[in-house]
């Protein structure tokens, strides 16, 4: 639900979305190893249990941004079904960024979860 909400507000909350999308991209590449844009997009959809409906085109600027920041690197290669494709892999800096951002997210969601839990310790 959370992600869907973000997606539907994509135009208004581009920054939040971009940040979240970047994290998902990094995590996907970490899990799957070097992967092309299409693969990353599909993988994100699958992982979200198809709750998240991604406009694939939005992925490319996000990939470019990560590459400009030095978190990922790209190289042309050949896909499993013999198509030429650009593969993205995590750099050392990207790995560190992923660790940090994942931790931050977990912390943030944990805090929010406490607020939203019915037992309501915080109230």
């Amino acid at each position: 639900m959370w992600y869907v909400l973000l997606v539907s507000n994509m135009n208004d909350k581009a920054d939040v979305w971009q940040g979240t999308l970047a994290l998902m991209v990094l995590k996907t590449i970490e899990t799957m190893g070097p992967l092309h844009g299409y693969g990353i997009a599909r993988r994100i959809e699958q992982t979200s249990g198809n709750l998240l409906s991604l406009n694939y085109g939005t992925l490319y600027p996000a990939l470019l941004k990560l590459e400009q920041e030095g978190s990922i690197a790209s190289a042309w290669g050949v896909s499993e079904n013999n198509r030429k494709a650009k593969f993205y892999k995590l750099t050392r800096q990207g790995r560190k960024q992923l660790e940090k951002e994942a931790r931050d997210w977990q912390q943030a969601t944990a805090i929010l979860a406490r607020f939203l839990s019915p037992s309501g310790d915080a109230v």
Partner: protein
Amino acid sequence: MRRLRASLVRLAGLGPATRRERELADEIESHLQLHIDDNIRAGMRPEQARRDALLKLGGVEPTKEAYRDRRSVPLLENLWRDTRYAIRQLRKNPGFTGTAVLVLGLGICASAAIFAFVDATLIKPLPYRDPARLVGLFETVQFCPRCPLSYPDYLDWKRLNKVFTAVDAFEGTGFTLRSGAGSEMAGGARVTAAFFRTLGVAPALGRDFRAGEDTPEAPPTVVLSYAAWQKRFAGNAHVLGQTVTLNGDVHTIVGVLPAGFHFAAAGDPEFWAALRTNANSCYQTRGCHSLHAVARLRDGVSIDAADANIKLIAGQLEKQYTSNVGQGGSAISLVELEVGRIRPILIVLLSGAGLLLLIACVNVSSLMLVRAESRKREIAVRSALGGSRARLVSQFVTEAVVVVASATVLGVTSAHWLIGILIGLIGADQLAGMPFLQGLGLNFHVLVFAAAVALAAAVLFSFAPASRSFSPDLREGLAEGGRGSAGTTWRRLGANLVVAELAIAVVLLVGAGLLGKSFYRLLHVDMGMRPDHLATLQIAEPQAIRADNTKVVAMAHEVTNTVARLPGVESVAISSMLPVRGGNTMWIRVIGRPFHGEHNEVGYRQVSAGYFTTLRAKLLRGRYFTEADDASKPPVVIIDHALAEKYFPGEDAVGKQIAYTPASAKPMEIVGIVEDIKEGPLDETTWPTLYVAFTQDPDDHFSLAVRTSKGEQALLPTLAATIHRIDPGIATYDPRTMRDRIDNTPAAYLRRCSAWLVGGFALLALLLGAAGLYGVIAYSVSRRTREIGVRMALGAQPATVYRLILREAGWLIAAGLAIGLVASVAAATLLRGLLFGVRSADPETLAAVAAGLGAAALLASYIPARRAASIDPVDALRAE
């Protein structure tokens, strides 16, 4: 850190992008292929698979667009694209671009060049410590508000004042300088010992004068100006301790002043000698006024308070000494003293340049508006296609910035050149009197000024057209095409701009007219003499003979006799001071009338027998001096008409006797009365003048006036060479024709410069105003082609069409003239200080300007009117 890296990468992405573009296309193509493969594997038909892949991607172009935005900095990239587009657009339209850049460049050039002068004179501080706390001190008498002090008065002022931390005296003078070839005159000054410390100036080399070095006992010392050090000693570092012979005395060089130092009040001398009280017998007499004084205010004392204190002391001295009767005192800011004379003209010129700039801006804005108007349809189409308002406005802004930037470059470059021309126009002689103008050029201040003007212009030109180009209703813009209602709004606005332009042009033309007329009046003032065909030269006799009056007279005779034998020379005369230069004064009393020590101050000149005939002055009564009036005869004098009127009203002065005021002074008989000669400044009434015979009262410094039947300019070098052959010890200086001398008096050249410059500005303003009017009328005609076609088809005659168009122009011209004339009468009060023989509301000038501008404006509107009248109705209607 990551951000920074990303920004750098993005900035690097600004360049040409062909390779990256191909890579992007490849990547998206590969993405689609992979997706299509998957879809086909899932059982879709090929076309369906592709369609689905495209849908899921969100379109190829939008993806690429988003990617590109991220790739580099969109703002910069747009700017780059806008700039290139702007340059392309401007190049496609060279007429518009050239005119706009030229007109604005002209305005920037004029205002930046004038601003350079204003900066050097009024903004840049004088090269002294805390110059605002320095004042000049003067004695005041009825006819002379800023008169020199006497040495005893200076000492009393210094001792009695309660407002100054220091008071020092100086006297600008000339020194006869012994040099290898012979003698020459060099600009010099005598100053009291603490003078440079009072100004707060430290020498660049050596020291300034020590306390006590201005006494008769101390050995003579001299401080060099930086220019003299460079010119006469080639900047030699070992110059200290060397000697120079000034007026026959050997002076030791003790210091060199810094390069930036100048002191116009003393004539910016080369040699600064300590003022030794025995140097000039004048220093011992309270009634002999030859010094100026500069003083530094105590903390917290205002100039007004200092002035009051000086007036108080002058009042005490007036009671104490008969020589001081009628003498007040005044303290004036030194800054005012140095630059006060040219401040009014600079303000006038800056205003003139400002108005020209304004008219140029109005002109260019109306050009921009017309252009924006004609692009209305393009703008409407672009916004209908999704161009955002901000992007479209930024297009206008970029275009304006490109135009302004080109104009600024053009303007500043040509300002550099214009400054050179203006310096040339002022002339080397006047420049020496305005040392603050040395090294004038495009400095930081001027560039900042030009940048500020450019910024203001860019803002004006960006928003004026941008604000007009967006009709609230898009459809209107699209539908309008090339004609219709919006034309009328433009016509109204454009018309207002033209009225403003014409009004400004009127103000400038009236200013130029008044200044030109003043200048004319000044040059045609009754001189009481014939200034043409007169060569003049100043002479200092050798130091060795100066003490002996017989020898001084004999040498003067030899000089005049030798020069008189030169070919073409008609007559030669001597005077202690040439006309239009002012000069010394004396106090007189009339023998046989009661005298109570009042100061009857009269101008005073020692002249040779041939003076009045050589100048072609007019004898009213009595006789001229003759060679027979020598030291052995009783003293005789000639007076001018003004003196006769003032002291002998209703009587015949010839045969009466006068004397100087000391009781011991010998009576002198008046033998003649001459018509007033313009001995003082051209723009002042002639002060009563007394002429004494040079042979009876000689001077070792005098001026030579030579009337020649040939060209007087060509005579000047011969004159100096001839005199040097008599005795190389005679110093000659300042060879100039009389005409040149008159033209270069401050009264004349200040008015000449302002008249020429304001005249130039006015002419340009007239051109721009006429061009603006032409533009508006021509535009209006092009808008009304159809209307005129219909009228003519219905039987209107060409004359009717002329009337139609010219009536529209006539209203604009009349409005511009009316507003301009009213404004110029108000503006002319600003000029009052520069006017001479003309009232600020001079009906003749106003009428001439109205007629001239009216004619030019009618001509400018006649051209489009003729085009309107020659419209072929068939063509005009078919064109729709």
